[in-house]
């Protein structure tokens, strides 16, 4: 059942939130050992919440638009009293004393958080293989990755363990796993959703967004979590845009740009589906043009300087002094070093070193400074493109879900998984990945719709057209 239908049934008293939760927990129990989707299932908390929703319905109060809908949370979202690890040994056992704004908003809307999902350690990865607690398997083919870094949240929705999930997207970490798991994923405009309570990877790029099995569910979830938060200075001051009301706006008269750099190097089956999506949008009344934005090619290298630079600073706080894991040693410096050596995995260490180097005296201008210039050029290039078209179209990922170990030996091959998604993060804009057809081995393919800041309504309406045509 979709989240919208489930919430409607719960609000009408036809289904109890407790029953909806039981269904979700059965699905989790059936496959969590096999797929390693949830790092922690908060049964007690979820049952209490579901009962509260049912009590509200019974006493005639409206529990909200997500009444009784089980939601999976990426384990880099802080939840008061509930273990939160970012899939890192260094935070093992840590229970935050506060809850992320997005989770508070979900709960206020009647949703029932069921647990915390696996991710690449500190969201650094594209396959969930860098998790300190083992990889998550793709529910559609357990020999393959679910994508990453929000692989656990994508897998939870794809496996029917929860109708909705939240992930975070720094360079594609919602859209790429959504594509690989055959579901909808939204990377909102930077600042549309509060980051308060999201364990930071790269602060200027991170953004929280929804996973859902349908465009409408994703729109509803995003509407609930979006909007200004006084606890996040970078959150946009304007009221959140209406999304659900515009789902059926269609694409008639819209100008869509099929971007050559957003299919370049993708597998043939992926390119074919993007072409088919262009045709479907055209058939629905859009005007499709082909265009090239060469600056997008610079995105990957700029991203792999900016994101690690910010991460090197964001992750400095994990030193064993105040919380999380501590590896004892005689002296402070030695304790810091031992804690970080054992607490962080290889990918996290690689990025901390990369970022530290990029910011160092004597290298800053050549690396970090240069990357910031590229970022400015990227923003300019998008701005020019949006003078010609309303929406950009491309692939979400270069291939369907790949096999375990296929890209772990070569970090650069792994980094290329995000080549189509990174530019949106650098520009702080919005993008949606929507499943559209299948490719190799019958696995799903996602196409990506990109738009300027605060264009979510437009993108979701276009995604809805593709969803119907698919």
């Amino acid at each position, binding site marked *: 059942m979709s989240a919208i239908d489930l919430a409607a049934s719960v609000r009408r008293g036809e289904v109890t939130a407790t029953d909806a939760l039981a269904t979700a927990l059965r699905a989790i129990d059936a496959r969590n050992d096999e797929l390693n989707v949830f790092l922690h299932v908060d049964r007690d908390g979820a049952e209490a919440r579901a009962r509260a929703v049912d009590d509200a319905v019974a006493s005639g109060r409206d529990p909200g638009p997500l009444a009784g809908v089980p939601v999976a949370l990426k384990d*880099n*979202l*802080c939840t008061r009293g509930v273990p*939160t690890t*970012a899939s890192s040994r260094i*935070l093992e056992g*840590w229970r*935050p*004393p*506060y809850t*992320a704004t997005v989770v508070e908003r979900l709960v206020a809307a009647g949703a029932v958080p069921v647990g915390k999902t696996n991710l690449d350690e500190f969201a650094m990865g594209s396959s969930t293989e860098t998790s300190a607690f083992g990889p998550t398997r793709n529910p559609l083919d357990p020999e393959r990755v679910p994508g990453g870094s929000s692989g656990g949240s994508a897998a939870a929705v794809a496996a029917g363990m929860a109708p909705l999930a939240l992930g975070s997207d720094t360079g594609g970490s919602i859209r790429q796993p959504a594509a690989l798991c055959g579901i909808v994923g939204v990377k909102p405009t930077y600042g549309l959703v509060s*980051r*308060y*309570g*999201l*364990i*930071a990877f*790269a*602060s*200027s790029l991170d953004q929280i967004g929804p996973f859902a099995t349908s465009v409408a569910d994703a729109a509803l979830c995003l509407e609930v979590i979006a909007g200004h938060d*006084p*606890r*996040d*200075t*970078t959150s946009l001051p304007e009221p959140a845009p209406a999304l659900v009301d515009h789902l059926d706006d269609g694409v008639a008269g819209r100008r869509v740009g099929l971007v050559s750099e957003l299919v370049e190097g993708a597998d043939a089956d992926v390119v074919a589906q993007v072409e088919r999506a262009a045709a479907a949008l055209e058939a629905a009344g859009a005007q499709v043009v082909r265009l090239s934005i060469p600056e997008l090619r610079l995105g990957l290298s700029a991203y792999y300087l900016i994101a690690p*630079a*910010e991460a*090197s*600073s964001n992750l*400095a*706080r994990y*030193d064993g*002094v*105040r*919380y999380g894991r501590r590896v004892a040693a005689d002296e*402070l*410096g030695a304790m*810091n070093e031992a804690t970080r050596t054992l607490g962080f995995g290889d990918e996290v260490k690689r990025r901390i070193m990369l970022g*530290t180097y990029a*910011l*160092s*005296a004597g290298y*800053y201008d050549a690396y*970090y400074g240069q990357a910031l210039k590229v970022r400015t050029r990227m923003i300019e290039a998008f701005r020019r493109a949006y003078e010609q078209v309303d929406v950009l179209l491309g692939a979400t990922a270069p291939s369907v879900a790949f096999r375990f170990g296929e890209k772990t030996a070569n970090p650069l091959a792994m980094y290329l998984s995000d080549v189509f998604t990174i530019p949106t993060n650098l520009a702080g804009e919005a993008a949606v990945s929507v499943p559209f057809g299948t490719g190799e081995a019958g696995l799903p393919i996602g196409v990506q719709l990109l738009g300027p800041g605060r264009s979510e309504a437009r993108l979701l309406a276009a995604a809805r057209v593709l969803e119907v045509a698919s």
Partner: protein
Amino acid sequence: MKSGWEMVVGLEVHTELRTATKLFCSCANEFGAAPNTHVCPVCLGLPGSLPVLNERAVEMAMSIGFALRCTIAPSTFHRKNYFYPDMPKNFQISQYDLPINSSGYLDLPDGSHVGIERAHMEEDTGKSTHLGASGRLHGAERSLVDYNRAGVPLVEIVSAPDIRSAAQARLYVAELRRVLIATGASDGRMEEGSLRVDANVSVRRPGAPFGTRCEIKNLNSLRSLQRAIDYEADRQIELIEDGGTVRQETRHWDESTGVTSTMRVKEEAEDYRYFREPDLVDLAPDAAWRDRVAAALPPMPGVRRTALLQHLVDPTDAQREAVEVVLDLDLDRYVHGAAEAGLDAATALARTANEVAGAEDGADRLSVEAFIGTLRLEASGQLSATQAKTVLADLLAEGGAPEEVVARRGFTQLASDALDGIVDEVIAANADEWSRYRDGDDKLAQFFIGQVMARTRGQANGKAVVEILRSRRG
């Protein structure tokens, strides 16, 4: 300081701001609370927490900028990255290439002028206590950290290298402290660490380029500041004269031994890897906000000092000191009030700096009108100096009008006629002294005043006594 040498000093002064809450969270900004009681996810740097800039801290920073005649410009925040257990995030949020205040100056009471390069905002760190023999981090058996101070707003005021003596450095910090207190942004307490000073000291031959500088830390009072700078300049001169060269380093002042010693040399200096703080947006106070802050600013000590000194002709050192007392205690209104009423400003200044300043909270009860009234009675000879001081003391203790005190104490009876009689009695009783006085021994006037005072229990006006003596001398 050895002749043929000149010292060059620049000072970095950190002041905590007196905001109700911390710079980036709503924890109380309060000194002296039980350890780790004013903390929250933000100032503990917990994963996922985000800073939100305190507007009041921005206003106080702007107040300091206005008071120091700075340019107030759009600014940004950076992260200064280094590992230290006092710093919850292992980076400090500070302003770097674009500070809120830049290019100002401060005029000192001695007429000298010190440039202000910048006055930027940043967050304070926590405070460590190291248990064990050394009392320092290295070699400690155990270290405890109190994060109550972590995230307290600071403004760092960086002077130009315009200071040329330890005494001038002291004068600068004293005047800056007065300015900071006047703005309401700081309580100026050096001993509690809410005002902290680091000194950059170098020496050179007059006219030569700047020498290599050393930064001196741990200067907890004006006295240690002055001593440390003098010591350090002498150390550098001696070193150079002995054929050595000064090494750029950070040095620690030891108040008990009176020497500075190496903390770390430049090669060991951290690479702070500054970059823009992505969790904060640019800070660009609009003109209306800036104007509101500027308009709310009281007159600064320099302006007030000039106004007070204007009442005096060739002020003495004692009078200059009295002016500083009046400034520090905010008692200007008495001096101005009396001077504007045509009374003697020197007397008004003396009475304010002694009697009024000496009475704790007395200024709350003594109105300017009552002060002027008392001085007027003294000037007209109706009250002796001693009586005037007594009247002021009563007014400071209980309030009211001087006439009431005068009546209650019976001071009026001694005026004019009564005094004539007493003086005549004293002359009659001391014929020998009187004849010597009459022959020109003016020093004996003091003797007669003393006699009159004894008979009137100090209630006579000395000046009036002398006038009567002169009239009797013919």
